[in-house]
């Protein structure tokens, strides 16, 4: 009886497989792909990125497309899961045969799929911030997000200016926090600070008073929190509850209005390094990015009725850079796009001014960040 069952199973599987193979479409479009964490824990990155990419796609097509052809951005959701990211990357490369890929949103997923791009020789422009993505430099892999090292450096420079010596870190135990924690563990002693405490909290934890109490006992001059919403907001609230007055730095991972909304009054006075996007209106008129940033903000808010975040900006930068590379190369061949990407200099994106070289596939510097402070429920440029 198992035989018959197997035959039926065979038939079902076969039917499923046959349904799966759909014909490819006509070739009057240029297809680029995107692997983004639109759902799952990293959705706060992936969703604005996806929205922005589709916005850029429409804008490019409205302006006549690329190289006379229509631009199509195929977005796959990896659900913040590395397995799904691998599947999505394979699908883009093998099934959709895209010429370049933007994303993934998270460092872990980027690291997980990078090698497929080296193998199949398709350029990948990651939206994630880990240094490991571009160091060592892979021939086909680029990134548009400012590095954790840049953010940490910016915080430490500010701490040095204020004469703070003993620093405590409190980081989230996921890929984002781990990456920041590693950089801080390296930079804090290297720049002459003392690491007073090094605590961790879980991505889903809802109370961090235990960690803060422990930090309080170590009596640091400042606390650096490395994580993404909602963790740092909870920490800000717990800090207020415990009456801790030690200055608190948070990282760029919370650079959206949502953080202030969640932390409420506890957010007042907190400092963080952030892309210029969230303080675009406070930039001096002379800043070359100001017009672009305000333009992006206005368009995004009009289309999606939601506040912008710097992460959405990575979506803007990655797709725009790929388009720019195709235009300068006058070709939509993967090889040509890669070579052109590597030659881009002084390109103004939302995260800063991009300059790529064969040795530097990140293209940004510490300058991509400005220090920002929360004042009266809004971001305020510090310098």
């Amino acid at each position, binding site marked *: 009886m198992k035989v018959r069952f197997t035959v039926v199973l065979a038939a079902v599987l076969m039917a499923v497989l046959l349904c799966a193979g759909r014909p490819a479409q006509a070739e009057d479009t240029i297809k680029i792909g995107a692997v983004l964490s639109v*759902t799952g*824990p990293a*959705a*706060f990155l992936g*969703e604005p990125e996806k929205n922005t990419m589709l916005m850029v796609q429409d804008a490019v097509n409205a302006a006549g497309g690329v190289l006379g052809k229509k631009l199509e951005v195929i977005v796959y959701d990896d659900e913040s899961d590395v397995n799904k990211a691998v599947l999505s990357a394979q699908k883009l490369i093998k099934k959709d045969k895209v010429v370049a890929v933007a994303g993934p949103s998270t460092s872990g997923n980027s690291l997980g799929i990078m090698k497929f791009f080296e193998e199949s020789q398709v350029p990948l422009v990651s939206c994630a911030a880990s240094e490991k993505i571009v160091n060592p430099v892979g021939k086909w892999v680029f990134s548009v997000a400012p590095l954790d090292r840049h953010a940490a450096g910016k915080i430490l420079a500010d701490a040095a200016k204020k004469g703070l010596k003993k620093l405590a870190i409190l980081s989230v*135990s996921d890929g984002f926090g781990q990456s920041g924690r590693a950089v801080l563990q390296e930079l804090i002693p290297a720049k002459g600070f003392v690491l007073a405490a090094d*605590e*961790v*909290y*879980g991505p*889903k934890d*809802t*109370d961090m*008073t*235990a*960690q803060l*109490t*422990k930090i*309080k*006992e170590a009596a640091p001059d400042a606390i650096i929190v490395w994580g993404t*919403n*909602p963790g740092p*907001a*909870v920490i800000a609230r717990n800090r*207020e*509850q*415990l*009456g801790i007055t030690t200055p608190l730095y948070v990282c760029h991972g919370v650079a959206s209005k*949502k953080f202030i*909304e*969640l932390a*409420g*009054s506890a957010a007042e006075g907190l400092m963080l390094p952030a892309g210029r996007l969230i303080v675009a209106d406070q930039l001096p008129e002379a800043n070359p990015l100001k017009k672009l940033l305000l333009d992006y903000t206005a368009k995004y808010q009009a289309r999606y009725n939601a506040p912008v975040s710097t992460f959405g900006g990575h979506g803007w930068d990655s797709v725009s850079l790929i388009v720019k590379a195709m235009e300068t190369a006058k070709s939509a061949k993967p090889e040509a796009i890669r070579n052109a990407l590597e030659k881009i200099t002084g390109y103004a994106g939302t995260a800063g001014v991009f300059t790529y070289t064969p040795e530097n596939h990140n293209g940004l510097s510490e300058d991509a960040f400005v220090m920002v402070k929360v004042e009266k429920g809004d971001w305020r440029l510090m310098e």
Partner: protein
Amino acid sequence: MNISSLLQYLISGLTTGSTYGLAALGFTIIFNSTGIINFAQGEFVMLGGMFSVFFMKWFGLPIAWAVLLAALATMIAGALIERLAIRPVKGASPINLVIVTIGVSIFIRGLAMLVWGKDTYALPAFSGDKPIAVLGAAMMPQSLWVLGVSLAMLAALKAFFSHTIQGKAMLACSFDRKAASLMGIGVERMVLLSFMISALIGAVGGAILAPITLTSFDVGVLLGLKGFAACILGGLGNPFGAALGGLVLGVLESLGAGYLSSAYKDAFAFILLLALLFVRPQGLFGRKSVKRV
């Protein structure tokens, strides 16, 4: 050892622990009437918090009304789940029912994401944000609300089970479904009722927790997990065990974070839980099941 730090760890542990305990209470009610672990229990907590936030936002209701309506809405959701997903599979093996509840929890989470988006939301604290100082440690007024409401709910459950006919009938179902149905107790109605009650408990929990823990469409996963652990720790089927199990788990985590390593605090709590199970396979307050042969 610093006394005020220790006290702070305890307060922090009790606050977190009561969130686990509240989730665990709901597990217990459904376990008692059906013998299954309801993996969608965490979603009830989520629904309670999210409904409260949105009743406040949509209708501009005062917080008390929002919480009340949220509890009501979640109760209806609980009843719908029982009717649409649990009742059609009655008679199936427990593992099938558990898979159904997993399906339900995925479904509810998906629906919540679709309707409310992926953002995190905060609910204002019921009586202000001013911390209360206790011997050098600080406590939020909301923590008192959580502890108080948890105790009140426990007392209400106790009264329900020992003084009302419905409660006694439900208890009868938990001991022997067949006998209960022979005694004229509508077992199906009891199951429905148990889903509604545990949805209510979850929702109230979710609402009073939201000011402390914040809420989003996916908070249910972790609460479900920790609630289940609390249930087992206390001994399945015993509401007091469940509540206490939650508190113990919370305090263990907090002490682990404070005195050992914050990175391994959850591992620490679970290692102790396993060790306890190896010594006392029926949990802290569970009855040893004696099966006649």
